[in-house]
């Protein structure tokens, strides 16, 4: 809300300059912001906390800075006596919805036009001036925080009923929109709804140029009911903002007194009797504050003198003292003060947070549990970084188009920001392909990237989230270099002897998807991205991807290392070149060689060739085998024998043929 420095000064005795306001509101964290500086005035705003409706008024604001200042608040002395007996009967159907409802008839008002003085004041704080009675009611709301409503009395039939709207009931509110009132708290007369309680009045009883007699409403509605109604109607007003934060009977009563006085003063007319329904008084609220608790929470000791002075300014009445205990009666305009901790916060505020000392807690050492997953993920990321990959982080949303196109079982967001962000991703691949497209478009063509994050799935109406890792390479390496990096990654994570099985995958180019298995459990896939997916993202280049499901993978991660004895005897290398059928599974060949139980240290493929001089349907594979024994130096003759064994086995098992023979 907007405050006018000049208007604020009307309510105080003593001195207060604008610099002080800036300083005090600064201390209180209210972040004052100047909207307009004029010759004789400053208009400013503050950030008012969600639990402080009282601050949304001049008086409430002044009360908040009062403990810092050298001024006092003026009291509204004026009370208007009723002049006529007229009163409006009120019924509240459910007192849980409305705790207090009061109204007052004013008959024969003779001025509807706002004088310049009022008009100016009301426009300064951001309202458009209307009929005088309406301007005055808005002004009172800003003055003391109580929203009021003015009805044209002659349009109300019978009595006032505060009740819920029935199915089919509708009302055109003063903003000209028709509203569905079902289940919303409304004000009605005997025939029809006339206002939405605490939110907005109806056009049917609105004040107009012909208005002679009015009905003033001042009430205390259940904040939750107002908030629900406001949400349901999508209608937020100055009134609803205050009611939903919780006002009080006192606010309502003060509001009625003040508006009656102002209407009598500016509009004339005869003032009727106040009629009301609901509780006239609220229970007294006592908070017990133990001074020891102040030290326990804030870590500072506070002198009695400071407390007494502060409580007096805040209106907290010390009812009783008992040793270190104080019983404080809390005024009704401070509904946010419910228990001792709330009072302690007030003490800290006025002690100024920044003047409270800082210290590092000295507590006994105790081991904090820490997530092994966090540490493992960090190590994994570091390995990928070492292998030359860049980490990317993407938004977790995918578009409705992706979901439709690929028929995904994705979780829909009920209130998405836009259609492009309307589902949760089921795989990291979609967003990461966006990253690929973006970078290629921006001339970063060589990409080796990975993302680690949550993916989401709808399974039997259940919302599941899982951790996933996706590693991608485009324009950087040939596939086997990429695969080599992936294998190195697994090895560094403690997973040796990874197996691959050719499998179907709708996102892979036909025949290029291999399931990755570790001790017979599938932990992921390695694949070339399908043309369909590439086309969807408008990418032409080959894309190699490895996706890992962390759920399984994380169980096998083992960064613990063990020393292996260094070799004492020299190694010998032999190179082989074979022709194989082109669909050979190399892992099987390796396994077969290893099953011979020869002193083999390493088998390494160094050339794969297909094409000229190679018969149709065949593939040439060149590999070297490094022999080494831990017991002795191997003789040439022994190695020749081993080689023969290997050649025989391969020729028999895989219809391979040694080349150059």
């Amino acid at each position, binding site marked *: 809300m907007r405050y006018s420095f000049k208007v604020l000064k009307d309510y105080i005795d003593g001195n207060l300059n604008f610099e002080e306001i800036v300083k005090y509101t600064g201390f209180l*964290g209210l972040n004052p912001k100047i909207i307009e500086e004029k010759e004789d005035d400053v208009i400013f705003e503050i950030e008012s906390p*969600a*639990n*402080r409706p009282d601050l949304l008024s001049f008086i409430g604001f002044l009360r908040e800075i009062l403990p810092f200042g050298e001024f006092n608040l003026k009291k509204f002395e004026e009370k208007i006596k009723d002049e006529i007996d007229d009163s409006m009967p009120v019924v509240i159907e459910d007192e849980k919805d409305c705790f207090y409802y009061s109204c007052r008839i004013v008959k024969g008002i003779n001025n509807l036009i706002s004088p310049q003085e009022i008009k100016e004041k009301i426009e300064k704080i951001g309202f458009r001036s209307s009929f005088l009675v309406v301007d005055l009611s808005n002004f009172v709301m800003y003055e003391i925080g109580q929203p009021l409503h003015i009805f044209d009395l002659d349009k109300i039939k019978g009595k006032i009923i505060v009740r819920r709207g029935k199915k089919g009931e509708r009302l055109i509110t003063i903003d000209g929109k028709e509203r569905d009132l079902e289940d919303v708290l409304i004000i009605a007369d005997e025939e029809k709804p006339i206002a939405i309680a605490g939110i907005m009045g109806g056009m049917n009883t609105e004040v107009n140029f012909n208005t002679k007699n009015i009905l003033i409403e001042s009430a205390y509605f259940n*904040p*939750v009911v107002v908030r*629900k109604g406001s949400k349901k109607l999508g209608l937020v007003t100055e009134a609803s903002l205050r009611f939903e*934060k919780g006002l009080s009977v006192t606010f309502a009563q003060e509001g009625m007194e003040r508006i009656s006085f102002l209407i009598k003063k500016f509009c004339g007319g005869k003032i009727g009797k106040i009629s009301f329904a609901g509780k006239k008084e609220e229970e007294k609220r006592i908070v017990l504050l133990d001074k020891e608790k102040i030290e*326990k*929470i*804030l870590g*500072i000791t506070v002198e009695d003198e400071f407390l007494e002075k502060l409580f007096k300014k805040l209106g907290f009445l010390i009812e009783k003292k008992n040793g270190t205990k104080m019983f404080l009666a809390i005024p009704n305009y401070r509904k946010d003060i419910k*228990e001792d901790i709330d009072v*302690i*916060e007030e003490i*800290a*505020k006025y002690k100024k*947070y*920044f003047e*409270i000392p*800082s*210290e*590092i*807690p000295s*507590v006994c050492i*105790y081991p*904090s*549990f*820490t*997530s092994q997953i966090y*540490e493992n993920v*960090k190590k994994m*990321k*570091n390995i*990928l*970084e*070492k292998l*030359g*990959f*860049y*980490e*990317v*982080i993407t*938004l977790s949303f995918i578009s409705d188009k992706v979901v439709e196109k690929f028929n995904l079982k994705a979780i*829909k*967001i*009920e*209130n*998405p*920001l836009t259609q492009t*962000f309307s589902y949760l991703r089921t795989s990291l691949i979609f967003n990461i392909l966006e990253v690929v497209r*973006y*970078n290629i478009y*921006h001339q*970063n063509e060589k*990409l080796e990237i990975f993302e680690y*994050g949550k993916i*989401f799935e709808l399974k039997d109406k259940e*919302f599941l*989230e899982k951790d996933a890792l996706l590693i991608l390479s485009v324009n950087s390496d040939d596939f086997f270099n990429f695969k080599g990096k992936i294998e190195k990654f697994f090895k560094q994570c403690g997973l040796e002897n990874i197996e691959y099985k050719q499998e179907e995958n709708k996102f892979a180019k036909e025949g290029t998807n291999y399931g990755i298995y570790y001790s017979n459990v599938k932990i992921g896939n390695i694949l070339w991205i399908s043309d369909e997916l590439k086309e969807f993202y408008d990418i032409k280049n080959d894309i190699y991807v490895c996706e890992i499901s962390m759920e399984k993978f994380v169980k096998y991660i083992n960064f613990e290392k063990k020393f292996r004895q260094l070799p004492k005897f020299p190694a010998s290398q032999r190179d082989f070149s074979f022709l194989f059928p082109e669909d050979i599974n190399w892992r099987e060949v390796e396994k077969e060689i290893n099953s011979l139980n020869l002193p083999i240290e390493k088998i390494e493929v160094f050339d794969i060739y297909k094409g000229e001089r190679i018969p149709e349907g065949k593939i040439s594979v060149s590999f070297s085998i490094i022999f080494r024994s831990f017991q002795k130096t191997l003789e040439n003759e022994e190695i020749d024998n081993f080689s023969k064994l290997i050649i025989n086995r391969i020729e028999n098992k895989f219809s391979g043929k040694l080349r150059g023979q």
Partner: protein
Amino acid sequence: MIENNIKDVENLLNEARVEIEKIKNLKDLEEWRIKFLGRKSLLNELFSKIPNFEISDRKILGTKLNIAKKILNELYEKTKEKIEKIEKKYNLSFPGKIVKIGNLHPITKVIDEIVQIFYKLGFGVVEGPEIETDYYNFTALNTPEEHPARDIWDTFYLKKEEGILLRTHTSPVQIRVMEKYSPPLKIISPGKCFRRDAFDSSHSPVFHQVEGLMVDRNIKFTHLKGVLSYFIKEFFKKEVKILFLPSYFPFTEPSAEMSISCVICDGKGCSTCGYTGFLEILGCGMVHPNVFRIVGYDPDVFTGFAFGMGVERLAMLKYGIDDIRYFYLNDMKFLEQF
């Protein structure tokens, strides 16, 4: 007699090999040539001695000497070529070849820097789910349904009726941890959060937070200030002025907002700090007794503090990044800078 001479040749070769390894320029190489291949070299001396031997030995020594001469000549030519290549053909002022290494995302880096600082203070890391329930995200944090403070967090719902949503902050982890463990507790929890904010230079519907919680007997507001002041100084690696001011969060009381003197302009005032010289950095406070009651801790025995900070905001200030969207565009030219 001849055995000794053959041995001399072997030694000569070894010596020549060792010395040539060290040679880096043509001048030293010339000296080497004179020493091993010149007229007064040992090799020449031995050649001239050949006639003194018996015929059978002459052949053996001759062959040996010729092989040695050939090896030395090869060594000489090879080294000469190598040195000439470096000295003449290449201008060493040209830059080295570009070496490609990987990199982690700045968000990951900043999160880990935060984590490492809190490790030093004995905090542990706990993570929580991104899909949350209304209960953990709001109700248990003293923000029951229809609490006006709920408007602070504009929420993405997956199923509003059942209260299933994307967490709007990392604070639900506090509740999950306290439900599971008894005090004392010292934890931080980094993670992705979601708010229904427009995607612009300073807002993102997806962002990261690090939540912190410490609960024990005798934890006070002064400790909250002490711990967070230590953190900020470690994080920005320079002296910054720290300012704590009142704020409002339903799950802490007293609640505070911590600001620091602007790291961009050093407090002089700039567009980043809105010409105030200060930047709001994080929200914090003493855990509200209602939160303790909800998880079954006795608020008369235990006290604690909690805080939450935005990772992107810290990263933007630390690196001087002016648009939050860069983090999610993942332009390589951006990612390679950190």
